[in-house]
């Protein structure tokens, strides 16, 4: 298990972030077993938490808070609930809405790690005298090296890749060497009631899982045109926030394409409030332009070759990375579909995370002529 370097000097004092799920429960249990001084904290992230869990939401109900408390009681550690609802609303939920309004596709879990768990929570923990924050993320962190979990299906290194070295220096992920099955078995062995609690999948702050309806409530109707790559109007939409790059369904186009092949969202332009659609071939991009990188490993001399992942649970592609103004440009070894601005480009050397950068836009240099898809008007 990884730990900050001074663990031998004195007993490590850690704060275990406990969502009420099985992963964070076992992570806390392992911290206790390691002999550390562990305090459990549940983050209250919702202004009006629901009483009972619904669907597959992860952590926002009172039931989840009680599950976390019960685990802490069984482990014999102090437990507190800290209210981060205001910070969460500003840094994660408002950001999520603003990103969609700007034509991008955000990943709120990534933002929560960056702004809440390893910022607001970590800062408070350090100021209160803790050495580190322990979470149940599936990733390996050893001597500052962040690597994929041994359980490829559960690997969460992608949503942790936005963290800085300083943030990771005070993070402990005790589960990276275990599969989810092993984690559940360990929870059962320890007598933790959450051993068989279902995994969470949905966005925790959208209770019914209906992201479209949530965004409609926040952004309202903003009707505009759906156009092809030549600018010809093919239909209309009620708001660009209903669309994500690569999306095929729900376009409701009035004119079929000349070849009769299906059309996909190629890009979203909030400035003109248009959604650009085209054929599958146009969806393939091989140049990804990104903002300034965050390096976890030593930055390699550019240009360099590595593997990149362009969305959570997405495919990995070989890529050549080079400097591009303040940011990076990645030329993909094989074109990819559905690369959306707002997601993170995470660079891997084998299992190890090198760093990440936010995707600003994509281009296509192969196939039927180069076409730029500035996925957001603010590109450049």
């Amino acid at each position: 298990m990884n730990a900050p370097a001074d663990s031998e000097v004195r007993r490590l004092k850690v704060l275990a972030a406990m969502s009420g799920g099985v992963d964070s429960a076992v992570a806390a249990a392992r911290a206790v077993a390691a002999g550390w001084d562990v305090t459990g904290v549940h983050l209250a992230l919702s202004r009006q938490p629901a009483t009972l869990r619904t669907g597959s939401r992860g952590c926002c109900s009172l039931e989840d808070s009680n599950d976390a408390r019960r685990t802490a009681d069984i482990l014999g550690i102090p437990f507190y609930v800290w209210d981060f609802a205001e910070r969460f609303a500003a840094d994660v939920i408002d950001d999520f809405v603003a990103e969609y309004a700007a034509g991008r596709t955000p990943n709120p879990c990534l933002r929560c790690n960056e702004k809440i768990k390893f910022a607001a929570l970590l800062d408070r923990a350090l100021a209160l005298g803790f050495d580190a924050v322990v979470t149940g993320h599936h990733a390996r962190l050893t001597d500052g090296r962040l690597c994929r979990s041994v359980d490829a299906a559960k690997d969460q290194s992608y949503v942790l890749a936005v963290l800085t070295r300083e943030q990771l220096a005070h993070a402990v992920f005790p589960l990276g060497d275990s599969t989810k099955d092993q984690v559940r078995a360990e929870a059962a062995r320890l007598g933790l009631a959450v051993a068989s609690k279902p995994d969470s999948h949905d966005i925790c702050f959208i209770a019914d899982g209906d992201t479209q309806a949530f965004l409609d409530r926040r952004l309202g109707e903003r009707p505009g045109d759906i156009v092809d790559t030549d600018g010809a109007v093919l239909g209309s939409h009620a708001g660009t926030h209903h669309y994500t790059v690569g999306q095929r369904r729900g376009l409701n186009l009035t004119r079929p394409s000349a070849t009769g092949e299906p059309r996909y969202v190629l890009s979203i332009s909030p400035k003109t409030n248009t959604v650009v659609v085209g054929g599958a071939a146009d969806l393939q991009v091989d140049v990804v332009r990104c903002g300034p990188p965050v390096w976890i490993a030593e930055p390699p001399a550019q240009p360099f070759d590595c593997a990149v992942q362009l969305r959570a649970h997405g495919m990995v592609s070989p890529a050549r990375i080079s400097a591009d103004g303040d940011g990076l440009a990645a030329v993909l070894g094989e074109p990819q579909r559905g690369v959306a601005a707002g997601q993170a480009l995470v660079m891997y050397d084998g299992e190890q995370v090198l760093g990440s950068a936010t995707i600003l836009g994509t281009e296509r240099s192969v196939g039927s002529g180069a076409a730029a898809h500035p996925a957001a008007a603010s590109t450049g």
Partner: protein
Amino acid sequence: MPYLDHAATTPMLPEVIDAISASMRASATGVAGNPSSVHTSGRQARRIIEESRERLAAALDARPSEVIFTSGGTEADNLAVKGIYFARRAADPARRRLLVSAVEHHAVLDSADHLVSAAGAELGLLPVDSDGVVRPEALAAALAEDPGSVALVSVMWANNEVGSIQPIGELTEIAHGYGVPFHTDAVQAVGTLGVSFAESGVDAMTVTAHKIGGPVGVGALLLGRGVDCVPVLHGGGQERDVRSGTLDTPGAVGFALAAELAVGRRAELAPRLARLRDELIDGVRRAVPDAVLNGHPVHRLPGNAHLSFPGCEGDSLLMLLDARGIECSTGSACSAGVAQPSHVLLAMGTDEQRARGALRLSLGHTSTAADVRTVVEAIGPVVERARRASAAVGVAAGAGRSA
């Protein structure tokens, strides 16, 4: 280990534990009677209930027939607010207004809110001054507006968070001047303040056992003989047809004894707690000069010290003190355990920053001078650390809203 959360619940008195144990053991050796049964065991249990009722009534200067046993303070508050509202409205449909102080316990406030949303009531919140005290002229004005429309006035005897004592006698007189019944939640007052049901003149009074060294799960509504009240719990009608449910014989025994002991020891306990409280407040202010005392500086519960520490989060303070073995409270906690800015402090006009940094230290029968010393020694470093934590996160500066 200093336990400074007596306002939440008190350690049970050993004598009370013995009496409850004896009563429970008796049920295993022959006297297992339901107090409502007519056979010998039932009659024996009934006798114990009625003796307990008489002893409780005597301790609180009420008549035995005015004691309605309940499951605790929350049930008694619900019964008073809902039961008297429904009875008054049944007698005259115009009586729909509830006048309730803004600093009531949620058992009263939420009962009133429920009547608004489900039973056509109107809620008039009585404002408090910056010390948390209801001004009699505010009640008089609210009543004078339309006296015939008021169903009930409810103002607590002493506030559970900031400890301020309300002018119950004066308020009751004003309500009675308009023929309106008056309920008071005296849960925090019994044992440290002189509480006489008869002398106070109130029509209904909530009391509970676990705040005075008795068991959790038993309380009572003292309800004047002439006060109409509709049941909230329906069933066998065991308690004056106002409250149903099999009576808890050991609980009644424990409550009666705890009340006798608390009232009997009040003359010694109250001044001792007041001295300890003043030492605590003075010591904390010496260690943290900008700490602010909330609630009335004089007319407050002898065991209550409620302080705000500017630039701190109350829950940081709570955690840091807990780690040093000092147990206290941020004043109000919802079921998730999240410290919300207190409705009591907000009603007093306290700004949100001061409300967030509030800590309630409540002393009781187990408190000692050593407890006070431990807190006074710990509070300086704890506040300093909590301030650094707030500054680090930027909560104190409201940075959470900046995005």
